[in-house]
């Protein structure tokens, strides 16, 4: 990898914007910015490259310097690290703008324009919507839709692999909600080095596990350099999507494009959704005669004997009306139904399974 000094890196417009935001955040979120109280608009500088990154191996003194910088920068990084919950699974993500833009992995968001829940470190749950994704590299964006001023981190401005600030061997740290959200534990912090660099993947020895996917990888200054993607069989193999991949597809992802043909996310196929109920015609709708417990209907609590009266807000009397709706829905889509049970009308939301 070629050497580049920080000075030569072209400035990204995002970076400039973030500097301004960082200042206002310093005022509104004093507790988070405590470590950076002295920073003002006039004095913000590129964080200095830690000297120990350029040593092949650390000595005893360097270990203390690494520890000091990690402890200084971990809190701000953690405040911006979130858990992403959808369906029965969960992954991680990181907030990169004050208004709640979240970077994550494509296999976590899994689709475009879907409702998900973002959980902050303190347990606060926020509504969010998936934006676009790049299915070939495992990059995705999510937008928190509740208005607010959120803690966020800076992104490495490098637009290409050879202009990013991190180099092979640099010390890095990872955060993520391993195995799902656990308020008592918080997100798990791991330290490692950048051990391999490829076009759209970097490898570190920060040990990852399920639930970390989509979580952030930081340089020792707390600047975001990657998003967790996948692991190999041995614990040394932990793969991340470098942030230059996000820069490359930024505008397309931001406006909600589903880019590429996988393998990290599959485009929804219309008509692929599965409800999991058997129906027969009844007086005031369609009577449920059987429910597959593991299906969308079973999970949403549909019971044998329920009368299906409405689908997506429209009254229904014939099976073919339901079939028509299903033809335009895909596995993973939500569908709203109304059922009549013991004389009472109930509205249920079903998340369609795959056929």
């Amino acid at each position, binding site marked *: *990898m070629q050497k580049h000094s920080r000075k030569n890196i072209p400035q990204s417009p995002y970076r400039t914007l973030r500097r301004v935001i960082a200042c206002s955040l310093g005022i509104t979120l004093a507790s988070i910015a405590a470590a950076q109280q002295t920073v003002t608009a006039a004095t913000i500088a590129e964080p200095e490259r830690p000297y120990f990154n350029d040593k*092949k*191996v*650390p*000595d*005893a003194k*360097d270990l203390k310097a*690494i*520890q000091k910088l*990690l*402890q200084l920068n*971990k809190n701000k990084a953690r405040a911006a690290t979130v858990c992403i919950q*959808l369906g*029965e*699974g*969960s*992954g*991680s993500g990181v907030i990169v703008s004050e208004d709640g833009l979240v970077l994550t992995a494509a*296999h*976590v968001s*899994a689709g475009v324009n879907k409702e998900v829940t973002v959980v902050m470190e303190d347990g606060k749950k926020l509504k969010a919507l998936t934006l676009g994704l790049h299915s070939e590299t495992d990059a995705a964006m999510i937008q928190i839709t509740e208005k607010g001023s959120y803690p966020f981190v800076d992104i490495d401005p490098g637009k290409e692999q050879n202009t990013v600030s991190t180099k*092979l*061997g640099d010390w890095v740290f990872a955060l993520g909600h*391993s*195995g799902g959200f656990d308020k*008592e*534990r918080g997100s*798990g*912090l*791991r*330290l490692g*080095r950048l*051990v*391999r*660099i*490829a076009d*759209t*993947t970097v*490898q570190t*020895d920060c*040990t990852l*596990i*399920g*639930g*970390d*996917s*989509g979580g952030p990888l930081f340089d020792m200054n707390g600047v975001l350099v990657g998003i967790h*993607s*996948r*692991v*190999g*069989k*041995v*614990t*040394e*193999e932990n*793969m991340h999507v470098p942030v230059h991949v996000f820069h490359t597809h930024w505008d397309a992802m931001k406006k909600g494009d589903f880019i590429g043909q996988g*393998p*990290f*996310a599959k485009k929804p196929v219309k008509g692929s959704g599965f409800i999991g109920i058997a129906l027969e015609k009844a007086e005031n709708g369609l009577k449920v005669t059987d429910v597959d417990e593991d299906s969308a209907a079973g999970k949403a609590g549909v019971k044998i004997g329920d009368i299906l009266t409405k689908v997506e807000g429209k009254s229904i009397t014939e099976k073919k009306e339901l079939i028509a709706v299903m033809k335009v829905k895909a596995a993973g889509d939500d569908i709203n139904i109304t059922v009549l049970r013991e004389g009472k009308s109930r509205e249920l939301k079903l998340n369609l399974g795959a056929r």
Partner: protein
Amino acid sequence: MNTHKLTKKGIKNSGLGMGILCLGLVSCVQIPAFGQSSLPGERRMNGKGVEAAFEAQRMVLQQNSAAIYKNRKPIGYGVIMSADGYILTKRSELFQFDAKTKKSTLKQDLKVIIDTERYSKVTLLASDIEWDLAIIKIEAENLSPAQWADSPEIEQGTWVVTNGSTSKSRRRVNIGIISANAREIEGDLPVMLGVALKETDDESGIEIMKVSKDSGAEVAGILKGDILKKFDGVDVTKREQIIDIIREKQPGDFVEVEFLREGKMLKQKMELRPRKEIQAGATIPQSRNDQMSGKTSERRNSFPMALQHDIDQAPRQMGGPLINLAGKTVGINIARANRAESFAIPAKEAQQIYKEMLSTIPQ
């Protein structure tokens, strides 16, 4: 360990995070082969060059911690507590389980190595199943006891060092950082009654819904439908009351229960037996995270308080000290929970439990 060699086709990867989608990825995702941009093994976290920076800590482990062997194979480490050979270690690794007899027995012919000195007479003096700690004793003098860290607080991001794979004469370090909040690690209690319980609707007691085979409850003649009224001398109406009482018990302890059967109050003593012995043979499905983790500690949860760190150790490397850069012991390694999470009992609690166990040893 050079595990970073890639084949031309690249390596198979497991996706993280979203269960159902990742299962699909396990077989289909091939990452591109990395070019020349690869860090030499010795410069990596577990590489010899990085480990060399921890020579001072390695010496502390070499001289002030015990390596425990069975048949020349390491089964764990221990924290030296006194000059005359008291050693604190992880309890459950000292026992072996026989699937046929469904009994745990103490491993025999254990050996201890401290620095380059070998000790062949090892006795178990006390143990505590709640914390999974034990005191063993060797015949020794002039050992250097562990120096415990003064402060119970240890900040996340603090370097921690522990025993890595070891040769008979030379220890190696394993390094990482404190990575999450110290907390209780919940899980199934290590001892069990062997009954399924349900609170009665009128809150008059707790109904026995099921009695497990080979449990103390079965031996005591407890039947489905009995209504528990008193447990270990306490009036009970909530399941949590019983769980709180069992939490403090050791295997082999008896509790007195009073229960209602067909209108009559009956009294009986019940033995609390290790969960492992009652549930032997039961297959517990492996989670996806366990599948990607490899071997984990058999006892890896249900600790009243634990530190979490990111050192990836083998289950046979538990029981030893977790030290900071100053060489002070901040905890005792208690479990490899998975590939990303390891637990240690914090210094304060470990010393407290050690004192409590000491008081149970007849002088």
